[in-house]
C-alpha cells in the first residue's frame, strides 16, 4: 500500500470514528428525550454528555483555535519569553491542565446541579452540556488565549486596555462584590451541612490541626515535599472521618460538637477572619494541597462508581416544579435553571483563573485549546455526575432533605405529608431510616445541596465498595470532601478579596494599598470577612433557608462576570479583524445578558413573595402593620424586611453593572466597525518560539 492510500485509509477511519461518536451521542440523547414515564439509566446521560463533549472538542474548539483565533505554535508564549523560573515557567501541558482544572473545579459544579435537580434531570443536564460546549468552554479558552497574547495580564487589566477605563473599573468592582456573595453562599452550604451533626463538625474541626501539622512538616521538616505531607494528612483526615462515628455515638463528646446553624455561622466567620490573617504556609497552603488531592481523587472515584453501578435515575425528567413553585428555589426554568447552574455550564469566575497563573505556564499557544476548552469540559462532566448523584435519590427523600422548614414545617409527619401531596411519596419512617443509615440525627431541611449530594455519592460508593454498612462512613467522607474545599475557598477567597480591596482602596489613600502595613491588612480583612459574614448570617436567620435568596444572587453575580469576560473576548475578536466570527463570544454573551437581566428583574419585582425580594419585604411589612407579628418577633421581622430590600439593591447593582459593561463595549465595537476608530490591540510583540513541539 502506498502512502497516499494509507492517508486516505486513515482519513476514512477518522470519518467513520466521528460518525460513530455522533450516532452514539444522538442515540443517547434520543433515548433521554423519548423516555418519559419510565426511569432511565444514568448511563444514557453519561454517554450523551461524553459524545457531545468529544464532538464539541474535536470540531468546535478546533474551529475556534484555527479559524477564529489562529493559534500559532511558532509564536513564543510568555512562559518562554519571560521565563524566570518563578512566575513564568514553561510547564508540561498535562501539569498545566491539572493545575488549571484543580483551580476551576470548586463546590459550584456540585451544588448547582443538585439544587436544579428539583426541576427534574432534563433541564439541568441539557444546560450543563450545551452551556459548557457553546459558552463556558469558549469563555475559558478565549480569555486564556487573550491573556497568553498579553503577557498573562488579568481580566481587569485587559478590560481596561482593550475596552476602556470604565469597563476596567467595573470589572474590579464586580469581582470584589461577586467574591463576597460567593463566599457567603458557600459558607452557608457548609453551615447547613454541619448543623446538628457532631460527626461532620468533628471531622471538619480536625482538618484544622491536621492542616497545621502538614504546614509545619512542609516548612521545617521536609520543605516543599507536598506529596508526602498530603498522604500523611489524608491518612489523618480518614482517621478523623472514621473517628467521628465514636464522637457521634458518645453523648458527652457529641454534645461538644453539636451546634445550631447560628453558632456554626458565627464560628465560621471567626475562623474566616483568623485564617485570612494567619501566614499562608501554616493553614491555607497545606489544606489547599490536601483538598485538591481529595477533590481530584473523589471526582475520579465518583466517575468509576457511576460506571460500575450504572444507577437508575429515580427523579423524573421534569417535575411539577418547572412551573416555578419549587421548594428548593422559587422561579421557573427560564431564567432560574440557567443561573442556578452557573459553574458546570458557564462560570464567569473561571475567567480570573484563565487570566491568572495558567497563561504564565503554557509553553505553546496551541495548548490553550486543551487547557482552556478541555478543562472546562471536564468540569462540566463533574456537573453531570453531581446531577446523576442527586437524581439517584428517591424524589420524596430529595425533597425532604432540600426543602426548608419555612415551607414544609418542622414536624416530620406534616413535612412528609406535604411532600407526598406533591406526588413524591416519602414517610417519616423513610427519613428516620435514612438518617440512621448515614449516622445523622435528622435529614429534614438540610438545604444547600451538600447533604443530598453526599447521600447520592454515598449511595454510589457504598454500592461499589463496602455495601450498606459503610454508607455512614461514605456519607461523612463526602461531607468532609465538600466542607474541606469550601473552607479552602473561604479562606483563599477572603485573602484574595483583601488584596483586591487594598488595590481598590489604595487608589484613594496610598497606605491602604500597601500589603505590609498591618492596620491596612486588618481593616481590609475585616471589611471582606464582615461583608460575606453579614450575608451568611442573614441566610442562616432566613426562615426560607437562605439558599432561596442567596443562591440566585450568586448565580447572577457569576454570570455577570461571564458576560464581562465574553464582552472583552468579543472586543478582542473584533479588533483582531475577526468581526465575522464575533458571534462565537457574542452569542453566549447575549444569552447570559438575557438570563441575568430577566432573573434580576424577577428577583426584584416579581409579585410572588418567594421570588421577588421587594414583594417579600412588602408582605412582611403588611404583617407587621396589621399586627399579625408577635411582639417578640417584630425586631427579627424588621431585619428580614431590611435584608430583602438590601438583596433587591444588590441585584439592581449587578443588573446595572452588566448594562454598563455592555454599553461601554458596544460603543467601542461600533466605533471600530464604522471605521471611526482605528483598532489598537494591546498584544505583546511577536517573538518566534525556540521550543520544539506543538
Amino acid at each position, binding site marked *: 500500500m502506498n502512502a497516499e492510500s494509507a492517508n486516505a485509509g486513515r482519513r476514512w477511519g477518522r470519518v467513520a470514528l466521528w460518525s460513530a461518536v455522533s450516532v452514539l451521542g444522538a442515540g443517547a440523547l434520543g433515548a433521554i428525550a423519548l423516555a418519559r414515564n419510565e426511569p432511565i439509566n444514568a448511563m444514557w446521560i453519561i454517554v450523551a454528555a461524553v459524545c457531545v463533549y468529544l464532538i464539541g472538542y474535536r470540531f468546535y474548539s478546533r474551529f475556534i483555535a484555527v479559524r477564529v483565533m489562529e493559534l500559532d505554535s511558532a509564536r513564543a508564549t510568555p512562559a518562554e519569553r519571560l*521565563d*524566570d*523560573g*518563578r*512566575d513564568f*515557567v514553561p*510547564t*508540561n501541558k*498535562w*501539569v498545566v491542565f*491539572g*493545575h488549571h482544572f484543580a*483551580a*476551576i*473545579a*470548586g*463546590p*459550584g459544579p456540585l451544588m448547582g446541579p443538585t439544587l436544579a435537580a428539583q426541576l427534574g434531570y432534563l433541564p439541568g443536564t441539557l444546560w450543563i452540556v450545551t452551556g459548557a460546549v457553546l459558552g463556558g468552554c469558549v469563555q475559558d479558552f478565549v480569555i486564556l488565549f487573550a491573556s497568553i497574547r498579553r503577557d498573562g495580564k*488579568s481580566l481587569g487589566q485587559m478590560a481596561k486596555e482593550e475596552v476602556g477605563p470604565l469597563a476596567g473599573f467595573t470589572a474590579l468592582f464586580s*469581582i470584589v462584590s461577586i467574591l463576597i456573595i*460567593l463566599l457567603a453562599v*458557600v459558607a452557608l452550604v457548609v453551615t447547613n451541612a454541619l448543623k446538628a451533626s457532631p460527626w461532620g463538625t468533628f471531622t471538619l474541626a480536625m482538618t484544622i490541626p491536621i492542616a497545621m501539622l502538614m504546614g509545619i512538616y*512542609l*516548612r*521545617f521538616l521536609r*520543605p*516543599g*515535599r*507536598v*506529596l508526602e505531607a*498530603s498522604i500523611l494528612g489524608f491518612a489523618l483526615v480518614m482517621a478523623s472521618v472514621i473517628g467521628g462515628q465514636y464522637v457521634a455515638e458518645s453523648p458527652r463528646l457529641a454534645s461538644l460538637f453539636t451546634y445550631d446553624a447560628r453558632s456554626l455561622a458565627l464560628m465560621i466567620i471567626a475562623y474566616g477572619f483568623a485564617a485570612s490573617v494567619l501566614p*499562608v*504556609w501554616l493553614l*491555607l*497552603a497545606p489544606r*489547599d*494541597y490536601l483538598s485538591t488531592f481529595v477533590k481530584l481523587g473523589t471526582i475520579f472515584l465518583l466517575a468509576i462508581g457511576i460506571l460500575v453501578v450504572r444507577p437508575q435515575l429515580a427523579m423524573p425528567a421534569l417535575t411539577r416544579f418547572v412551573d416555578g413553585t419549587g421548594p428548593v428555589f422559587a422561579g421557573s426554568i427560564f431564567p432560574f435553571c440557567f443561573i442556578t447552574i*452557573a*459553574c458546570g455550564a458557564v*462560570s464567569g*469566575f*473561571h475567567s*480570573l*483563573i484563565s487570566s*491568572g*497563573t495558567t497563561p504564565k505556564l503554557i509553553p505553546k499557544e496551541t495548548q490553550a485549546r486543551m487547557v482552556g476548552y478541555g478543562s472546562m469540559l471536564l468540569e462540566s462532566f463533574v456537573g453531570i455526575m453531581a446531577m446523576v448523584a442527586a437524581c439517584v435519590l428517591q424524589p420524596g427523600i430529595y425533597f425532604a432533605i432540600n426543602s426548608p422548614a419555612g415551607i414544609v414545617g418542622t414536624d416530620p409527619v406534616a413535612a412528609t405529608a406535604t411532600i407526598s401531596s406533591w406526588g413524591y411519596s416519602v414517610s417519616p419512617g423513610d427519613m428516620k431510616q435514612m438518617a440512621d443509615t448515614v449516622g445523622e440525627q435528622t435529614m429534614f431541611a438540610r438545604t444547600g445541596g451538600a447533604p443530598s449530594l453526599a447521600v447520592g455519592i454515598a449511595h454510589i460508593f457504598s454500592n461499589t465498595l463496602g455495601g450498606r454498612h459503610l454508607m455512614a462512613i461514605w456519607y461523612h467522607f463526602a461531607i468532609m470532601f465538600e466542607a474541606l*474545599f469550601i473552607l*479552602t*475557598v473561604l479562606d*483563599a*477567597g477572603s*485573602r*484574595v478579596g483583601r*488584596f483586591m480591596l487594598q488595590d481598590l482602596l489604595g487608589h484613594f489613600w496610598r497606605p491602604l494599598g500597601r*500589603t505590609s502595613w498591618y492596620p491596612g491588612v486588618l481593616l481590609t480583612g475585616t471589611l471582606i470577612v464582615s461583608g460575606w459574614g453579614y450575608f451568611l448570617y442573614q441566610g442562616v436567620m432566613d426562615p426560607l433557608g437562605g439558599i432561596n435568596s442567596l443562591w440566585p444572587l*450568586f448565580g447572577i453575580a*457569576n454570570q455577570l462576570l461571564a458576560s464581562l469576560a465574553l464582552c472583552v473576548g468579543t472586543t478582542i475578536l473584533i479588533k483582531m479583524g475577526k468581526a465575522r466570527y464575533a458571534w462565537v463570544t457574542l452569542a453566549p454573551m447575549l444569552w447570559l445578558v438575557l438570563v441575568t437581566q430577566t432573573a434580576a428583574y424577577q428577583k426584584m419585582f416579581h409579585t410572588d413573595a418567594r421570588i421577588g425580594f421587594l414583594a417579600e419585604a412588602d408582605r412582611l411589612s403588611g404583617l407587621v402593620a396589621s399586627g399579625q407579628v408577635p411582639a417578640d418577633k417584630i425586631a427579627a421581622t424588621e431585619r428580614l424586611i431590611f435584608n430583602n430590600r438590601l438583596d433587591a439593591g444588590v441585584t439592581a447593582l449587578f443588573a446595572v453593572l452588566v448594562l454598563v459593561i455592555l454599553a461601554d463595549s458596544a460603543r467601542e465595537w461600533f466605533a471600530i466597525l464604522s471605521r471611526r476608530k482605528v483598532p489598537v490591540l494591546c498584544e505583546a510583540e511577536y517573538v518566534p518560539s525556540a521550543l520544539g513541539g506543538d
Partner: protein
Amino acid sequence: MNVLVRLWRFLQELAGENAYAVYCEGMRARHPERPIPTEEEFYLERLAEKYARPNRCC
C-alpha cells in the same frame, strides 16, 4: 510498575516538588552571579505569590 513510577513523577510535578530544582537550574544558567534563595525561602515566597491572586474557584 513503570506506570506507577510515571504517575508518581507526574504527581510530583503537579504538586510543584521540582519547582525549586527548575528554578536553581534556570538561575545558574541565566544569572550565575546572583545568590540563590534557600529551599525554605523559595517555598514561602512562592506561596505568598500564589495566594495573592484568585487561584481557587467556586
